[in-house]
């Protein structure tokens, strides 16, 4: 019975529901109100909730992210929107030195229940200051939870538990997902934000991925089926803390692993995932772990160059076939 909905609309529904059920929740960021959100997520919410709760900010990332942190420690439940992950670097001091740190530094007194949402990822020819995937950097920091909703259900269902988390939560929305259209499953409300999810069960190789790379991994798994390879696709969903048990359990069954990450290979989250597998399932492996990451360049504008820089379905297929060959 349910109508089709886009990822963008699912996110908007989640915000609307959160604001309706809790008057401590408000949305704050650049152009979230009159403009309707840089990517249209908050379109229409200003009329519904008014400018106090759908709060346009100046272009002052550090001030409004920090203000979200301050409001959170003083009893509110802010949702702060940053246009893109590249711009979040202007607020990195607040995210790292305050949001992630205040609880420990204060000996457990100051918890920070803020949710910070931002767009991430490439594939839209936006070049090197709007396209990077820095969620892996944030996953380096103790004290914050890093979520990467990749499905409509997660776009709809991750916000509420994120707001209920007493600690800071960062939500990374891949820009290529906003127009994905489909139906929500019946139990699409509050989802478990601690666990990875098997999006496609398989026996031969585990593709570990998240966010905007999930659709590519699923396409690759279907293509591999034509070659008689039964790939499992594990959606990590939460990059910090990683669901290590789910990772190790899947690899222990398939004995092969390919990590797909739009971040850069060097020092990235893919490296961390490989290390966890080596630490926890080394003797289960029948082949070296494969990695499909972005080329180590700032993302270029021209389409053919950008395509060449980002993980593509064929790259994932090739990496899985190499793993099957024991290479």
């Amino acid at each position, binding site marked *: 019975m349910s109508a089709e909905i886009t990822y963008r609309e699912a996110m908007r529904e989640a915000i609307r529901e959160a604001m309706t059920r809790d008057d401590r929740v408000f949305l704050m960021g650049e152009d979230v109100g009159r403009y309707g959100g840089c990517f249209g997520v908050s379109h229409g919410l200003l009329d519904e909730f008014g400018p106090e709760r759908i709060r346009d900010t100046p272009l*002052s990332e550090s001030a409004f992210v*920090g*203000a979200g942190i301050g*409001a*959170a*420690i*003083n009893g509110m439940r802010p949702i702060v929107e940053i246009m893109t992950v590249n711009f979040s670097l202007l607020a990195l001091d607040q995210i790292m030195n*305050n949001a992630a740190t205040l609880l420990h*530094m204060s000996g457990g007194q*100051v918890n920070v229940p803020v949710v910070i949402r931002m767009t991430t990822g490439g594939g839209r020819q936006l070049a090197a200051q709007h396209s990077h995937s820095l969620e892996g950097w944030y996953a380096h920091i103790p004290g914050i939870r890093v979520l990467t909703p990749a499905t409509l259900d997660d776009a709809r269902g991750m916000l509420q538990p994120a707001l209920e988390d007493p600690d800071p939560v960062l939500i990374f929305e891949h820009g290529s997902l906003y127009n994905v259209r489909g139906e929500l499953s019946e139990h699409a409300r509050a989802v478990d934000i601690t666990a990875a999810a098997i999006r496609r069960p398989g026996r031969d190789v585990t593709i570990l991925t998240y966010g905007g790379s999930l659709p590519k991994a699923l396409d690759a798994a279907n293509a591999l089926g034509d070659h008689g390879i039964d790939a499992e696709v594990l959606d990590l969903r939460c990059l910090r803390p990683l669901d290590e048990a789910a990772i190790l359990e899947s690899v222990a069954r398939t004995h092969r692993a390919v990590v797909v990450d739009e971040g850069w290979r060097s020092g990235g989250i893919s490296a961390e995932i490989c290390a966890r597998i080596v630490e926890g399932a080394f003797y289960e492996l029948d082949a070296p772990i494969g990695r499909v990451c972005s080329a180590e360049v700032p993302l270029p504008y021209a389409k053919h160059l950008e395509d060449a820089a980002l993980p593509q379905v064929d790259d994932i297929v090739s990496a899985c076939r190499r793993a099957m060959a024991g290479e």
Partner: protein
Amino acid sequence: MTEQHSPVDPEAARRLLGRMMLIRQFEERCVELYSAARIRGFLHLYQGEEAVATGVMDVLDPGDAVVSTYREHGHALARGIEADRLMAELFGMSEGVSHGRGGSMHIFDVSRRFYGGNAVVGGGLPLAVGIALADAMRGSRRVTACFFGEGAVAEGEWHECMNLAALWQLPVLFCCENNLYAMGTALARSESETDMALKAAAYEMSAWPVDGMDVLAVRDAAERAGDAIRAGGGPHFLEFRTYRFRAHSMYDPELYRDKAEVEQWKQRDPIMLFRSRCIDDGILDEDECQTLLEQADAVVDAAIAFADGGTVEPVEDLTRYVTSEKA
């Protein structure tokens, strides 16, 4: 900056002088304790600036919030945080306000709405804006007092926060402690405009300079600004012109300023000035002043004994307070 002689009753005089003496004696003993290696890390002392914390805190209500800097022992003591738990924190003890996780630069006491203890210059400003935003959104008449040095005025966060607080008419009392040096860099070497109040006024908020060595002038200014903020007058900015008698931190050989300059400022020692005024005006006598000093010493002695008798945090608890503990 003219000398004001507001009326002060004996009870208030004892309170103000006693608090300033407590801060001074506490800091002087910290020097000895640092030399004796009981206190480690960075230690930034407040001698010379006691009138600022004492005067401002005297007019704040218990429900008001305070955001402070890494030179915050004076703010903490003036806010009423027990010297015992403050000293225990400097000793890194379990009984410290931050359970030994914060140290000298990160004093927190949520029961007194004292939100640190920020050691990134300017980093507390967005927090203060957010705390005030939460109060404003709930229609509260509470004020957030935000302390920072004149060095913070060079930070981008300062400009973002002045703008945001004024734009949203938030109840923040910005307390600029202008002690003329950002660590070792004199104001004129770092600012094109050295009049801090003038800079703040450019953001359309009431701002004026105050003699930071005169505790009554500080108190009067804070009261006037606080009343205006509570009446809905938006943020106010006070530039307290003061001076730090000691080095920036215990590592500072003070190569950047003349000893004669320090001695000249010591002629306007805020404790000496206020004590003389109280005696000259017949509000307190010499014996009463001496008693206050002895009481301050006794509190500090007791604090050292308390910290000495403290217990260390168990190493097994190392990773506590990284994320909230579920109730």
